[in-house]
């Protein structure tokens, strides 16, 4: 076989990669790379109604009983996530607090930061009251710390007092824009900061009364709510993008799953409480207000029990979060605790009046109600009366009512469905056992002897 060497000239074309690309190619055209402080704050404010609008909160306070798919109201041992608050409003607010490039065009930078601090404190207060110790000082640091340690509830409270005070002090004149709750009115933000601080102080009535008293008085001196106009209310809109949770459930999804509880109706109906006809509708079958026994698993109940009132499930229903009546109830209690000077009865009556005005928009029926048996002030039973009326007032803000129940023990007739007592905290998110295992374990060991139970008690609850 013949072979020939062939001399080749290999002319090959090689498109060698070039690593320089058009500058724009990896810039995301679909999302903004800059956000103003007030837009971030506004987004955080969209989370406010979620602090109240959930069936779980209403079950913990036993305001509502489940009609058909009875389950969550039986207090199953199940975890509840707090991630949404950290990733949602808190991270937005932290971004504002950390920012060194806020624009004064949308209001004084100090005021933007103060509002961010106040809202951050308010969210954290809600979180720690529900779960106990939670990540706080090491939280919200992104890649600098993916596994934040849990701070004790006591240290969180202490820091929140300082933060709220600082926010109050840093506010300057000049309103901010994009404020969904107070329209930029900084006086109201100041009052909110001090009111939250005051209500937080009252939480310490059992665990650290001295500290509680001092903070309570200091907060009052800085100026708390003076009328229902000051209330922290999230106003839903007649717009499906910004609608009330209960509207989407009951009206949009046909879920007549919640009736007023028997406890609540039995508390209100015999004394002709003017708020009852706002809270619920008469039962369709009888035309009477009839509560549904809490935790009952049989009998459907949509026809024979009172379902949620039309104002409560309206698309644009307001969500009351921090209210003037709470301030008055707190002051009434503080007088009884000898924290402040005052007339308990006057404060008690004023609190009820402001509550009825808040809920019904008029004082019709107020006088009769204040004179009804068990409602008219009884100095020997003042703490219970205050607590029970506060409970009625806090309707649909079940988490707050539940916190006050844990602190005061009132109302004392909550039931134990299928033998399960009312929980005293929420269980940490499942994911913490995966993603933050060491700190999670340390927290449950420290507080609850290693069991992340819904019956563990938070620091101030003892």
């Amino acid at each position, binding site marked *: *076989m013949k*072979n020939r060497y*062939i001399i080749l000239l*290999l*002319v*090959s*074309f*090689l*498109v060698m*990669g*070039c*690593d320089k*690309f*058009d500058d724009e*190619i*990896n810039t*995301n055209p*679909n*999302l903004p*790379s*800059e*956000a103003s402080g007030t*837009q*971030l704050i*506004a*987004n955080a404010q969209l989370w406010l109604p979620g602090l109240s609008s959930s069936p779980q909160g209403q079950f913990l306070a036993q305001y509502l009983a489940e009609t*058909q798919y*009875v*389950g*969550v109201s*039986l207090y*199953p041992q199940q975890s509840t996530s*707090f991630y*949404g608050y950290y*990733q*949602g409003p808190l*991270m937005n607010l932290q*971004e504002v607090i950390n920012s060194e490039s806020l624009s004064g065009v949308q209001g004084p930078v100090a005021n933007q930061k103060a509002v961010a601090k106040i809202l951050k404190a308010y969210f954290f207060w809600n979180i720690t009251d529900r779960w106990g110790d939670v990540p706080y000082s090491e*939280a*919200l640091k*992104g890649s600098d710390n*993916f*596994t934040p340690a849990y701070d004790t509830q006591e240290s969180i409270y202490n820091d929140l007092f300082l933060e709220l005070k600082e926010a109050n002090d840093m506010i300057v004149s000049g309103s901010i824009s994009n404020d*969904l709750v107070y329209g930029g009115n900084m006086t109201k933000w100041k009052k909110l900061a001090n009111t939250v601080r005051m209500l937080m102080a009252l939480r310490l009535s059992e665990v650290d009364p001295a500290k509680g008293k001092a903070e309570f008085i200091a907060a009052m001196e800085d100026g708390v709510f003076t009328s229902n106009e000051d209330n922290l209310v999230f106003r839903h809109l007649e717009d*499906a*993008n*910004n*609608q009330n949770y209960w509207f989407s459930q009951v009206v*949009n*999804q*046909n879920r007549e799953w919640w009736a007023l509880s028997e406890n609540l109706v039995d508390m209100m109906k015999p004394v002709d409480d003017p708020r009852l006809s706002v809270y619920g509708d008469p039962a*369709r079958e009888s035309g009477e207000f009839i509560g549904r026994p809490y935790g009952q*698993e*049989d009998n*459907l109940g949509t*026809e024979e029990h009172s379902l949620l009132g039309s104002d409560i499930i309206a698309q644009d229903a307001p969500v009351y979060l921090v209210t003037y009546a709470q301030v008055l109830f707190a002051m009434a209690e503080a007088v009884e605790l000898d924290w402040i000077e005052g007339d308990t009865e006057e404060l008690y009556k004023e609190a009820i009046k402001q509550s009825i005005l808040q809920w019904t928009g008029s004082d019709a029926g107020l006088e009769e109600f204040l004179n009804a048996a068990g409602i008219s002030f009884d100095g020997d039973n003042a703490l219970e009366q205050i607590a029970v009326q506060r409970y009625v007032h806090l309707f649909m803000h079940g988490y707050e009512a539940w916190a006050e129940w844990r602190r005061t023990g009132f109302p004392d007739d909550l039931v134990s469905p299928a*033998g399960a007592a009312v929980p005293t905290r929420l269980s940490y998110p499942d*994911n913490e056992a*995966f*993603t933050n295992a060491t700190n999670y374990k340390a927290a449950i060991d420290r507080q609850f002897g290693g069991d992340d139970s819904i019956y563990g008690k938070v620091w101030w609850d003892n």
Partner: protein
Amino acid sequence: MKNKITILVFMALFQFTSMVAQEKTVTGTITSSADGLTLPGVNVILKGTNQGTVTDMDGKFTLMVPDNATLVFSSLGFATREVQVGNQLVINISLTEDLEGLDEVVVTALGISREKKSLGYATQEVAGEDLNLTNEQNVLGSLSGRVAGVQVVGSSGASMGGTQKIKIRGVNSIGGGDQPLIVVDGTPISNANFSGSDQADYGNLGQDVNPADIESVNVLKGPAASALYGIRGQYGVIMITTKKGKKGPKDINVQINSSFAIEEAFNFMPLQNEFGAGSSLSFSTLANGDPYVAVNWDESWGPRMDGTPVRQVFSFYPQDPTYGQLTPFVPHPDNIKDYYETGYNLNNGVTVSGGNENSTFRLSLNDTKIGGVEPNTYLNRNNVGLDASLDLTNNLIVSTNVNYATNNARRPQQGSEHGTGYFVQWFQRNIDMNRLRDYQYPDGTYLSWNVRSPNTTTGEIANLNPLYWNNPFFDAYENTSEDRRNRFFGNVGLRYKILPELELSAFVRSDMFTQNIENRTAFGGRRLPAYSVGKYENQEMNYELLAQYTNRWDDFSLNVNVGGNIYDRRYSYLSMGTVGGLSAPGFYNIDASIDRPSTTSYLLRKQIRSGFGMASVGFRDTYFLDASLRNDNSSALPENNNSYWYPSVSGSLVFSELTNWETLSFGKLRASYAQAGSDLNPYQTTMAYGVGTVYGNTNTLFVPDNLNNPNIEPSFAHSYEAGIELRFFGNRLGMDFTYYEQKNKNQIISLDVSGTSGYGSSTINAGLIENEGVEFTLTGRPLQTENFHWDATFNISRNRSMVVELAPGIDVYTYGSTTYSGVTSYLNSYVGQPFGSLIGQAYQRDDAGNILLDNSNMPLYTDATHNFGSVLPDFTGGFQNTIRFGNFNLGAMIDFQGGGQFFSRSKMLAVRTGQDPITVAINERGSSVRDPLDQGGGVRVIGVSAATGENVDAYVDARSYYRNVVGRRIYEEWLYDASYVKLREVRLGYNFGESILSKTPFKTAGIALIARNPLMIWQNAPKGIDPSEISTGSQSISWYESGQLVSVRSYGVNLNITF
């Protein structure tokens, strides 16, 4: 045996330019060793040259040769033979049929044809006709069980071209996004999937390839085989080679292929037929004393269906003939089955192919019409394909391959609380499905089965709007989901032979599609009326330049490829949905939105520029060594770190060349090492804010949940592979064994982090995931007589994926989670454990394993942190048989999986809602578990009291036990083994013989009976759930089932004619 006429079609590919000095003329006749018949179309080549000829119709050839010439005789389907001419003037030889194709040429990366024996890594080829055995709706599903190491998890035929997920060699990516690249004639095509885990399953886009165009599919497993595709070949490549026209004397072939099959729903979950709708054993009554069905319940915990006359739901409609009447309360055992229709699959294809001395041509048309088993569902698909080439000069060839596909479908909804999967989840056993079919009364009122309770005083239901569920026929005909896709892909290329050994080629390749998806929610249903529409456009261009040099010197052979590629992708979509309802019934338009509609406009751009080189050296056709190097530059990586290199090397030794042991026909050892680099999707390296809800006039913005990473680096997969290939007894028995290991380092993933950091996840370079596995294929012809051949291929493979390392301080990666009724389960991967553990709520047990019970004797359960182990199978495989006897041929395909597990929400809910037979079982006391406890009823519970530590053996109320505890919270009960053995396809064909055909204008004609999905031979999971069809939507790992579509099987007939 091949018949002469078809063989003629395979004319020689060689062109004769000039003849060198000849010294004598040799003639001969070539026959087949099997039957002695003459063989036309055999290539006769003078070894070491490109000169030669082709045998004529009678198998004869004539060729001028030099004195000491060696002739090489080769023909498709036969073993190549070399003959020294010596003094001979007449050479009559016979060729042996080659079962495997000893010198099989396979298409490797970038479309480079290589002799299979020279490859140092595993590839496996499937013939197109095998894939198209029974007209699978989604052709990729036909790969199931055919290739060792390739796992296909499919979806029900009711989805009509629904998702078929392909996984090559197990889980290679922590994120699970490890779908192989699909390449058609060198053009990478998108295999994207627009489905979520619920609602319509639009299927993966790879199915736009016309099955009738597929000549063969070659699966390149692992990066070794696909390093030349770079990033996108990291998880393997599915190379599809399409059929072409043939060069040669002018010839035209027309082929017509028609098939018709009927499709039927089957494999229904067994349900109880004793108790009907409601929550208690007795009926509620109206004021007049009439008992009525608990129409507001979507569960079957109600009274016994004993024929008691009751007011049923229909009797509350004034328009209904039974209005106000009592009718017997009886079961409707087939009420779910009654919903389904008989579907059909009609497929018609025509191809025209041909060629002459300097051109080839093939045009194909295909039309598929599928009518689903679910009412009002269909898929229409059209394919047009053109493949042509033309020799402009002797050295310059221009070629093109263009494919156009349209899909037009109305598909059923599926998944949790969507579509008909809810029948077994939430339903009344007493519903007569046939009464629901006319879902609208003449006055326009819609008929529902689930409405509010009647007012007992008036005996009327004031509000007859559906409560939690629509009438399924209302959903089918009013709440429709439609999708349309226009797809174009193909290439245009030039190939220029600079020298006989050196070829330059340039290709422009394109894949473009526009996907439209539209959903309607009608007035009168349980949901707010709505309309949504999305238009998704993708354009991927590849510009490719390649130089190939091939030569031989004595014992050495050399193949060098140097090339470059620019990949350019532009993807955009507009998607919009109404919010707050529609302004007018029947007006399905974004303009009808009551409130500010939701809108998204999105653009993605990405470019990768690559250069690569590859060299392959062979010595004496026995030793082969390959090496490659590639450089990628990705626009998606940070600018200072966007260029990276990676090599591969492989070798093989054909040791059968070194021995004279005749039993061994072929033996090869091979080994390889390869790296493949990988990048990420664009826009993950810089911070951007999320756009939040607009409140009034305030536009809100938020910090996103995923933390982007400006310091991300490319990741690399390192793979090692070794294998042996053996064939014995003249290729009648063959086996192939492969061992591989793959280490994926620095994988770019979005790692879930504690939300308390302010982010839910972060894009990071994480860890190390290791795969190792074995693949084994056995092929053989166990029986062979003159008129009978039985060919069988068996393959089995096993893969283990381990998570070795994640990120500092984090040892869990959450791949996915699913939540129902506030109970979540997860698919997690833990450092040091096999990939993909199913995590959920289990029974609380004491140290001895006894179930702990609460004070009501109900089982206690853990948090959703119990590890149930990996969901991935221990092994998968297939068994394919082809039997030919005379003109008949019989093909059967079995595939199987051992191990793996999944969670079934359907089964759990069937129990929870009192539909499962277990909820009407007879207990150990001889009573129905539904009977009251004090009458001997109840479910027996054995365990230990958590409070007292004492043993408990007690009876508890069945409804509380199944509905509130076991069927709602204890996921341990609802995990099933995913093992199965399935007969997937059977085909019995008959090819008309020459004696008949000679009287017709036809060259060939065949008819076949086909059955797809005829039989699940064995499965461990309960009846009604098909573990091979739990692929819902685009999740790349199937680990839970939440309302899968009903299984479908089809029977039909196929006619194939060429003339």
